[in-house]
């Protein structure tokens, strides 16, 4: 056993970590080490075992076998408290805050300065000291936060900075960031990268978990790829390319550019005229959107998050009642007539959030696949379900769309993210729609699943369907769209061809004046 700590001793060394859940092997003899002042990315598809490995490190799971060394010494980590004591900080993908408390209160929570002061007995929160320390950390690393704002009032980007500050406040030297960019806008991602550079310069060791190749290449010093629970290799950034990484992640070559013939658009299917809709806070989110989608074309709506995309999609698909304007599908006016009328008119909808909106997770695959059509024969007659028909539908779609990880009776929650999305896509496409609305259809998916969804959308287009794609990923928009519409503050402000540059799109998306392309 090494006891002398030298500069070359990794601050963290995971050796042959194996974690089994019953017969499922989530991590199979994974080695992973990390040095001070280094960003080491952990890359892999959804379900490859990245989060499990980090949960082992953070004491949430105990490993089936293997050992963890911190500063060269074996460490027993059986709870997050142990991890924190060893200087390990975790920034979760889903923030854990008390929404009504301030930024400062959330940061110091669990470790509050409570010394007695002139006007304050011991045991009472010393707000001034707490605030000062938060401010100090915030300035040092460029993590701009408002210490007095309530968490529920600040942006997602700031919430993430608060999470990082919370780890630093507990003297973390090893920082684990679990999919930190998943919730951020492009601008916020740039800011995060700058923060990470500063932390790195200060000697903090960083584990950066991601399934996005581009950002891994932008920030990491070394990259370890996990595939089906195994570490398939560790490579330095220098020399790595998106192609080489993707091959490691998926285990085969991935086509990045979707193959697509030129579109042959026909008559307009969707016509939206001067549509207005309010959001959940009763503020006007869609302010006079006008657009149309023809049969046989993919029209993408691009824009920065929060410019009315969600409300626009909801108003078109019948989930949200518009305040004014008109939505017509193949000549049928469905404005404000609800989801059933929209479905009857031929609208299908791949929702932006498969967990919250797309699926009923505890339902079986069969029950989920029936969600759009359970009221029609053969799935039901006179109000009574035909479970045989449910099963037959599920078996057919599971087979046709290659959904893996379960049969008709498996709960949807048991599937991986990519397979859950396949379920949503299968259900919507199988309804044989005239208009397919796909809202963020590849969010949180790995490269293999993205490829699948993209090719499905193009197949639908080629089968003469109208496809409306709403996406925040500019690459996805340009890869799929035949026409790009830019939404800004609830209005369609510009139209581009897919050859438009990032810069042109970026200017339009942020409200700049555009010369028509």
């Amino acid at each position, binding site marked *: 056993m090494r006891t002398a700590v030298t500069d070359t001793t990794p601050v963290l060394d995971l050796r042959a970590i194996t974690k089994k*859940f*019953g*017969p*499922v092997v*989530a991590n199979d003899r994974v080695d992973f080490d990390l040095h001070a002042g280094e960003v080491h990315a952990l890359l892999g598809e*959804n*379900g490859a*075992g*990245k*989060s*499990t490995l980090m*949960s082992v490190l953070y004491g*949430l*799971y105990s490993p089936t076998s293997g050992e963890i060394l911190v500063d060269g010494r074996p460490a027993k980590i059986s*709870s997050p408290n142990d991890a924190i004591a060893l200087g390990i900080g975790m920034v*979760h*993908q*889903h*923030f*854990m805050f008390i929404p009504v408390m301030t930024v400062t209160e959330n940061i110091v929570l669990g470790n509050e300065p409570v010394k007695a002061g002139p006007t304050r007995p011991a045991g009472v929160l010393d707000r001034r000291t707490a605030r000062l320390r938060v401010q100090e950390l915030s300035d040092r690393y460029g993590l701009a936060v408002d210490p007095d704002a309530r968490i529920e009032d600040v942006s997602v980007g700031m919430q993430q900075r608060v999470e990082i500050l919370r780890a630093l406040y507990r003297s973390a030297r090893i920082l684990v960031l*679990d999919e930190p960019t*998943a919730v951020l806008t492009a601008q916020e991602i740039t800011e995060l990268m700058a923060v990470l550079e500063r932390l790195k310069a200060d000697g903090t060791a960083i584990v950066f978990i991601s399934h996005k190749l581009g950002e891994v290449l932008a920030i990491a010093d070394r990259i370890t790829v996990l595939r089906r629970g195994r570490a398939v290799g560790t490579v330095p950034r220098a020399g790595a390319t998106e192609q080489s990484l993707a091959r490691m992640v998926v285990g085969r070559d991935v086509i990045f550019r979707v193959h697509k013939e030129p579109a042959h658009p026909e008559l307009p299917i969707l016509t939206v005229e001067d549509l207005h809709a309010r959001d959940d806070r009763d503020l006007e989110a869609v302010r006079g959107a006008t657009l149309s989608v023809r049969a046989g074309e993919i029209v993408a709506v691009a824009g920065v998050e929060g410019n009315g995309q969600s409300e626009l999609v909801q108003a078109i*698909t*019948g*989930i949200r009642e518009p305040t004014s304007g008109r939505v017509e599908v193949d000549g049928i006016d469905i404005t404000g007539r*609800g*989801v059933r009328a929209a*479905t009857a008119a031929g609208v299908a*909808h791949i*929702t932006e*959030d*498969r*967990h*919250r*909106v*797309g699926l*009923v*997770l*505890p*339902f079986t695959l069969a*029950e989920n696949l*029936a*969600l*759009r059509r*359970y*009221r029609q024969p053969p799935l039901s007659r006179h*109000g*009574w*379900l035909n*479970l045989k028909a449910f099963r037959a539908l599920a078996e057919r779609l599971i087979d046709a769309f290659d959904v893996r*990880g379960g049969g008709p009776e*498996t*709960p949807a*929650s*048991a*599937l*991986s*993210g990519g397979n*859950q999305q396949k379920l949503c896509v299968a259900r919507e496409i199988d309804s044989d729609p005239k208009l397919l609305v796909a809202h963020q259809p590849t969010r*949180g998916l790995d490269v293999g699943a993205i490829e699948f969804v993209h090719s499905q959308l193009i197949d639908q287009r080629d089968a003469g369907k109208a496809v409306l794609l709403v996406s925040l990923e500019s690459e996805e928009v340009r890869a799929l769209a035949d026409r790009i519409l830019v939404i800004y503050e609830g209005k369609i402000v510009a139209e581009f061809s897919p050859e438009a540059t990032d810069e042109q799109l970026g200017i339009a998306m942020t409200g700049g004046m555009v010369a028509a392309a």
Partner: protein
Amino acid sequence: MKPSRLARTGRSVLIPLITVLSAFVLAGLVMLVTGNHPLSSYGAIFDGTGLNWLFPWVTGQNRTIAAQDLQQTLVAAAPLVLTGLSVAFAFRVGLFNIGAQGQYTVASVIAVWIGTIWGGMNPVLHIVLAIVLAALIGAVWSALAGWLKANTGAHEVISTIMLNWVAIWVASYLFQEGGPLQGKQALGNPVSNTIAGNLHLPVIWGNPELQGLDVGVFLALIAAALYWAIIRRSTLGYEVRAVGHNPAAATASGMSVARSYIVTMAICGAFAGLAAGIDVFGWEFQVSSTTISTSEVGFLGIAVALLGRNTAIGTVAAALLFGALETGTAAINLNPSAINPELAPQLTLIIEGLVVLLVSTDLIAVRLLGLPRKVGWGRPQAVAAARRDTLAADDPALDPAEALRPEPGL
């Protein structure tokens, strides 16, 4: 891997059984501390339930008494099945119906009122009409809470509790001295008129004079079967479950969450109303302000539904247990040399309380046995959750609290 259906069923039976056993053991400790012998006391209670009738070596005079006790147990269990279903159905759509007591109360009033007017009517028609109207008024009363929830967002826990009190006090007023529904022969007692003998539900086992078992128990069983059919086999039940698990996904599929709330609550109220109907026409025959304010059948329905895990069979079994406890600890059914008759009813309350406590925490199952905790109401989903942790740990839907929770048994 996916646990087999058998294993899942086994688990969902095992956990409530362990819960009940633990409650009995803890209550036994209370008996021990208070100087009673737990085993002989439980023996006396068991005999008091009449369940000893099921054993062929119980003969002669004992067998007659046991039969009467068992009839009592079943008569007590029948309305508990129905109020249990009332609470369980609401759980399925994600609502907590604390209002079964109020729904039962308004239905009792309607049942006894209809049962004591229109003397010349065909008796069969009269009974059917009264019981149907009782179920209907229960449905309307309960749907009020659903309507309030759907249209104003008023929380159903609050509104059903308030509707309980409205029902209980209005009913007490109706039967009180000088109240509009006080019986003609009541003479100072807060009691309704009495339902005529030809309108009593037929007794199928035992002596009608001694509250033998009436057909109400069949109505309760039919209702349980109907409950299962609605939940598992109807489009309505499918909608109710979808809304219960995920209102946003249900809405996106064209279901109306508001309508689901109202319809669900109406069905809940109908179950509770039916309970009142079979009680009034099965053995009560009159309703008094006192019974109105001391009845607990609706509240016990909550415990029944919790213990029965909102399934039809579970609810029937739990109702049987609670009905047996009530009968078994009634002082007249007990052998005073084995157990202090004053302790017995308190013991029922202790056991019932412990069951609710243990069910709502799942403490025993989780901590002592390392069994997966059930997530949410209804079927156990922890296996799926554990799998989700493993295979899709990057998933945005993972509840943070769930993610932070260490695996049970580690």
